[in-house]
């Protein structure tokens, strides 16, 4: 790069010309106590709850507790640069984060500052992190599907754009995997994704960003990262900041998806802050407003009316349970706020059924309206057959003599379970999902051994790609008619013929 001295001096001259001498008026207070990411400040009588305050060394904080004689602030930054007696200034602003298209493909901290080493983010748009959720009149029921590309979810627990669907399960059961698959599957679907990592290891986040990048998904994704080594205050604001970044796209009439991974750690961080601020602890030592903490966040997910542009923000919060206890405080809270949950079971995970979704305990309360018609046409029996299979399976362990119908029901169930398995980072387009479920439902797989099923599936997909891509593209647009069904039977038979 060539640098011309004249150019620089003209820039500087220009700056000097445009500089206005002004008077800085600030309300100030004094730090009484500081430590553990919390500061108590004396003075600042007019400060508002949630207002940003400025500590020395350009460290920002947020006023949370307004008490009679002092205020309690959380500190976004290193407390070791702040000491007792330091001056604190009011800023008069509510905490804001940068938003906009420039954020896409970037990894940022909860204050919107880049941490991926790719340079500054050039955006002049800002939104406050705490925004009121939209009212009833501004919303409409969800109606478009949000395809996750995961067979058991798109078929049995469909998610609509604007919905809040909880992913819940023990540690290491593939919760994050489902979220990442969903992000990868949004490629080319005009859905902007925001992934908020709360309290995870930095190495895990780095791996995840790498996975997104390799799958070409980073370009339409914002990763908001508050890692385990960040202060609880950073963890606390991260989901709200991410939500504002997503809302920007929703308000423009686009579709956005946000993942909070995970809200258990968020609640724990908030508990830490609350205890340090000496708010009274309640059940499991969480403060009284821990429900509101998550309800106000998840209420911000919404589908706007057409008048407001029809944009949507879908939320997939993740909750980690301990020993499959979904009746603990935080899980029950979040279950009651969301529009359904995807329950992952470690028993299934370790018996090789991955994704380890338990269809019996999973529901989607509103997504049914959004499911595409073609899918609806083929899944009809699926849930029922699986439930029946689960019952029979337990029963069949005792007796050896089973009648023919029971045996065939068991056989069908085994194959259904087999086709619902899916590899990680390998989301399937919906037409392929429909086909393989149709094939199993119609009994084409019953005559084959279990270990053949994966091969048949692979063969089916190659055939669809090579010969029938036009047909499948048409098929998913409408309800499945008898005519389409006939054609589908034909294709199934063609696949089967390869294996006989």
């Amino acid at each position: 790069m060539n640098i011309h001295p004249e150019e620089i001096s003209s820039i500087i001259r220009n700056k000097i010309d445009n500089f206005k001498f002004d008077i800085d008026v600030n309300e100030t207070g004094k730090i009484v106590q500081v430590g553990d990411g919390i500061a108590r400040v004396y003075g600042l009588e007019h400060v508002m709850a949630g207002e940003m305050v400025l500590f020395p060394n350009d460290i920002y904080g947020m006023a949370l507790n307004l008490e009679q004689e002092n205020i309690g602030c959380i500190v976004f930054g290193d407390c070791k640069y702040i000491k007792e007696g330091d001056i604190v200034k009011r800023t008069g602003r509510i905490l804001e984060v940068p938003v906009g298209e420039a954020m896409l493909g970037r990894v940022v901290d909860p204050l919107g500052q880049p941490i991926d080493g790719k340079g500054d983010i050039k955006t002049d748009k800002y939104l406050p992190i705490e925004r009121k959720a939209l009212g009833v009149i501004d919303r409409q029921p969800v109606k478009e599907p949000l395809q996750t590309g995961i067979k058991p979810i798109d078929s049995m627990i469909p998610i609509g754009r604007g919905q809040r669907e909880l992913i819940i399960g023990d540690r290491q059961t593939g919760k994050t995997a489902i979220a990442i698959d969903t992000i990868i599957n949004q490629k080319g679907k005009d859905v902007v994704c925001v992934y908020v990592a709360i309290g995870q290891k930095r190495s895990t986040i780095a791996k995840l960003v790498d996975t997104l990048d390799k799958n070409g998904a980073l370009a339409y994704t914002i990763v908001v990262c508050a890692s385990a080594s960040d202060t609880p205050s950073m963890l606390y604001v991260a989901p709200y900041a991410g939500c504002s970044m997503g809302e920007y796209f929703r308000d423009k009439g686009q579709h956005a998806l946000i993942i909070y991974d995970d809200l258990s750690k968020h609640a724990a961080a908030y508990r830490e802050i609350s205890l340090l601020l000496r708010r009274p602890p309640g059940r499991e030592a969480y403060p009284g407003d821990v429900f509101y903490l998550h309800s106000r966040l998840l209420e911000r997910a919404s589908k706007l009316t057409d008048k407001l542009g029809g944009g949507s923000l879908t939320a997939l919060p993740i909750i980690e349970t301990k020993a499959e206890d979904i009746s603990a405080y935080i899980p029950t809270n979040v279950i009651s706020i969301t529009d359904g949950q995807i329950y992952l079971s470690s028993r299934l995970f370790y018996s090789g059924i991955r994704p380890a979704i338990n269809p019996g305990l999973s529901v989607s309360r509103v997504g049914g309206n959004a499911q595409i018609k073609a899918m609806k046409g083929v899944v009809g029996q699926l849930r029922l057959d699986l439930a029946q299979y689960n019952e029979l399976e337990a029963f069949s362990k005792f007796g050896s003599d089973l009648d023919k119908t029971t045996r065939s029901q068991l056989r069908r169930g085994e194959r259904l379970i087999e086709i619902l398995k899916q590899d990680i980072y390998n989301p399937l387009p919906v037409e392929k999902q429909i086909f393989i479920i149709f094939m199993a439902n119609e009994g084409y797989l019953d005559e084959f051994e279990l270990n053949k099923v994966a091969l048949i599936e692979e063969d089916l997909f190659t055939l669809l790609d090579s010969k029938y891509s036009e047909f499948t593209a048409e098929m998913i647009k409408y309800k499945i008619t008898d005519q389409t069904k006939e054609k589908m039977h034909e294709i199934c038979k063609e696949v089967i013929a390869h294996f006989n």
Partner: protein
Amino acid sequence: MKDIIVAKRYALSVLYNIGEDNLAAFIDEVKYIKAVLDQNTELYNLLKSKIVSIHDKLEFFETIVNDLEHKEIWLSFFLVLMPKQRGDILQQILDEIIKNAYLSKNAKAVKLTLAYDHDEDTILKIAKSIEKQIGYKIIYQVSIDKSIIGGFIAKSEDFCIDASVLGNLNKFVNQSITDKV
């Protein structure tokens, strides 16, 4: 620093016993005691000391306040303060008394820093403009600091007005660094 909060409580309760008419005289007394303590650090150290008996401390204190109009109030205040081992925040309490007395008259004490000495008129003008900004009357104390180059800085307990050349230059530098060229 937590002491400020405690000091404020003591200050308010002392002021509670002073009538509106006596306030000005009382503040003069406070300033006088402050000056005495400032000048006689040994005396103040004795008052703060946890070894010296309360009786002895009271004697010392009495010598200071003996000629004052509000002697009774001072002595009983001291009798409350000492058994609680709060001698160490005496200075802060005195500061708080002054501050809260001003506040009750809708005024604030302000430290006004100028780059060089101005005439009375100019300073009065500056004071007026500050009063307009903060909505309080101000009782100011001028100090000179050449390093601010020009303009003024007004500092009080709970606000800070920076209209100095130095502050503006700093701001200019900061802006130029953060602005993308």
